[in-house]
């Protein structure tokens, strides 16, 4: 009951400040009347009695203020007052308000988008249970992360620091579900892949290490949820169905959970097949080739209580064993741990540098916006000099006036920030859904999460306080007596003011921004028109993969010859050629080049 009463009182104070005020006024009035009654009874005439009662009571306004303080909740009450007043002031100058909100919306929106990318690509761990303990294994201290399958098996079986080491490889295959065969992008994964990552099936079951019994022994498919949704129309009957994968029968075991998109940030596979069946999937068998490094990434969860340094030492012990046992294929070998998701340190430095540059530019934009708004606010405070002076003269404290000005600034920054964030979120969702290269399942998973919202809020608050702080000195120096007397703020000559300084800062930042955007634009234009040494115009690429259609290696050349002849017969075609990896094409093929004197032909 007591709690309810006190709550009711506080709520009343919050929402009906005038009612609380009236009651307080009435109570104090009643006190004075009662005192006057007593004084009157002792023989004073009524008017004199009331006068004496008022004097005895003391400073009425002062005690009223103290009563308000005793009621508590002054902070929120003043805040509501200030917000109301600020809204009124802002409504009175819509041009200023719109300009300020738009400036901030653009600046904070840009920052939210760039931070969203930074967050999605660098800060946020892979969406997996206990992703902090997950590491990928990199060879040596360079950025070489590919491993050979026998090396992977040795790492997996000989280490004592990981709760299961998994491996995966990116591959392409032709999938025939009975109607229109199509190419699909998939992961070839080690049998323990799902168990090592802690993935539970959404539907059916996943395969395990125990399903593998040597090459081509596990013709199973686990679909990704997205592929099941788009290509199988959420049909729960797919479990157990047999489909043709590169002309080999594979059984669909189950569906992975919706939030699992594989272990490479940019690339979401359509489905997963066991790595031991790689020969059936892409026609080549490197399972026993220790010198051929084709396994895309080996990753695992470091055991609880084992530090990354201990795990690295453990791996290096295996490395020296490999180096001694297989001097021709492995040679001196060391390993290091990297965060998974970016293919080791292969993409990460470029992404990091790019995003750091962008973040810097976005930060500059926000600074320029703050400088701009700061001078706008200073100008506004100068225009409102008389209002400030009048309020000071009426007994308002300077801190109270500054508080109101800050409320106004933060209000603008919050509205601008909210508008910018809305735009940013739309852009981030669009970016996340964007596939920059239609022929590859590449995505940029930068959908916003709580930290993006938090950063936008903090940026908005910080910039509000930053540009709100510009007119502080002006208000502190206002002399109400002078202003009210002369009717304007006396300007003591032209001196270098904060506003001049802000203008210089703003121009400098804008010069940097404009220059850098021109440099970027020119770079783009030049790379669009650069001289490659060949003429890319009018060249058409037709991508085929005969292995996916079930052609055996000895049948391929004849078929390719027939295709070339057929294409040459098309009117208007001048030349037809065959190429494995076209120039400027993004491909994974890396060819080691050796000088003629090299004897150690390891990659």
């Amino acid at each position, binding site marked *: 009951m007591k709690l309810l009463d006190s709550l009711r009182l506080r709520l009343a104070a919050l929402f009906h400040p005038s009612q609380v005020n009236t009651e307080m006024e009435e109570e104090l009035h009643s006190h004075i009347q009662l*005192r006057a009654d007593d004084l009157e009874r002792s023989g004073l005439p009524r008017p004199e009695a009331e006068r004496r009662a008022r004097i005895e*009571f*003391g400073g009425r306004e*002062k005690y009223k203020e103290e009563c308000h303080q005793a009621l508590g909740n002054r902070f929120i009450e003043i805040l509501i007052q200030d917000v109301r007043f600020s809204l009124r002031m802002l409504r009175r100058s819509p041009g200023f308000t719109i300009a300020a909100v738009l400036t901030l919306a653009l600046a904070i929106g840009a920052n939210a988008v760039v931070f969203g990318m930074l967050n999605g690509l660098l800060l946020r761990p892979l969406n997996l249970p206990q992703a902090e303990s997950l590491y990928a294994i990199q060879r040596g201290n360079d950025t070489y992360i590919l491993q050979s399958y026998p090396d992977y098996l040795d790492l997996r079986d000989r280490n004592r620091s990981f709760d299961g080491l998994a491996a995966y490889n990116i591959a392409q295959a032709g999938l025939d579900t009975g109607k229109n065969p199509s190419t699909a992008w998939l992961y070839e994964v080690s049998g323990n892949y799902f168990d090592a990552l802690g993935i539970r099936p959404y539907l059916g079951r996943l395969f395990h290490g125990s399903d593998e019994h040597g090459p081509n022994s596990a013709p199973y498919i686990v679909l990704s949820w997205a592929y099941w949704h788009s290509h199988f129309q959420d049909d729960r009957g797919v479990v157990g169905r047999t489909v043709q994968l590169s002309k080999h029968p594979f059984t669909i075991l189950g569906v992975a959970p919706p939030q699992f998109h594989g272990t490479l940030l940019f690339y979401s596979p359509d489905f997963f097949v066991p790595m031991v069946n790689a020969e059936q999937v892409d026609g080549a068998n490197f399972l026993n080739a220790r010198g051929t490094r084709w396994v895309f990434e080996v990753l695992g969860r470091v055991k609880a209580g084992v530090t990354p340094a201990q795990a690295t030492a453990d791996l290096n012990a295996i490395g020296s064993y490999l180096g001694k046992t297989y001097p021709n294929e492995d040679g001196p070998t060391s390993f290091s741990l990297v965060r998974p998701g970016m293919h080791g340190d292969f993409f990460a430095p470029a992404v990091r540098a790019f995003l750091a540059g962008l973040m810097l530019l976005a930060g500059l934009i926000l600074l320029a916006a703050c400088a701009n708004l700061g001078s706008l606010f200073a100008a506004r405070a100068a225009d409102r000099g008389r209002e400030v002076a009048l309020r000071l003269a009426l007994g308002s404290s300077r801190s109270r006036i500054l508080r109101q000005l800050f409320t106004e600034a933060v209000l603008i920054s919050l509205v601008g920030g909210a508008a910018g964030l809305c735009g940013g979120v739309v852009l981030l969702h669009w970016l996340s859904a964007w596939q920059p290269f239609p022929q590859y399942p590449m995505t940029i998973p930068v959908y916003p999460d709580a930290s993006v919202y938090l950063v936008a809020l903090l940026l908005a608050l910080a910039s509000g306080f930053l540009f709100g702080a510009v007119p502080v000195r002006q208000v502190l120096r206002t002399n109400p007596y002078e202003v009210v007397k002369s009717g304007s703020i006396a300007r003591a000559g032209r001196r270098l003011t904060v506003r001049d300084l802000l203008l210089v800062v703003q121009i400098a930042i804008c010069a940097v921004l404009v220059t850098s955007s021109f440099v970027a634009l020119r770079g783009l234009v030049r790379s669009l028109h650069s001289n490659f040494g060949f003429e890319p115009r009018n060249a058409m690429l037709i991508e085929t993969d005969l292995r996916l259609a079930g052609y055996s290696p000895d049948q391929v050349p004849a078929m390719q010859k027939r295709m070339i002849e057929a294409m040459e017969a098309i009117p208007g075609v001048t030349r037809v050629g065959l190429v494995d990896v076209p120039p400027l094409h993004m491909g994974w093929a890396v060819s080691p080049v050796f000088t003629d004197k090299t004897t150690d032909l390891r990659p």
Partner: protein
Amino acid sequence: MANQAQLLPGTLDLLILRAVSLGPLHGYGVLLRIGQISGNALLIEQGALYPGLFRLVRQGLLKSSWGTSENNRRAKFYELTAAGRKRLREETESWNRLASAIACALSPQPEET
């Protein structure tokens, strides 16, 4: 006036609780009652009473309701809540302990005679 004592900080709340413990009172009544039970020996500025009353209401030690005074004026009456009664008991005890300790310390000591 000259021989009225200044209130020690924090004692006004205790006096208000004590005054109200004898029966519901309006603000002016609290003032009169304090004067009466202290033999008019304490100097309290009348307005200073109200922040104290509001504070005690907020702490849930007093509750208030509007009523009519003995000479037919509308006034706000205060009375103790259960928590207020408990607080008064505790504060009285601790005040008595403090007062007797100070009195004991200030009384003439054997070695002074």
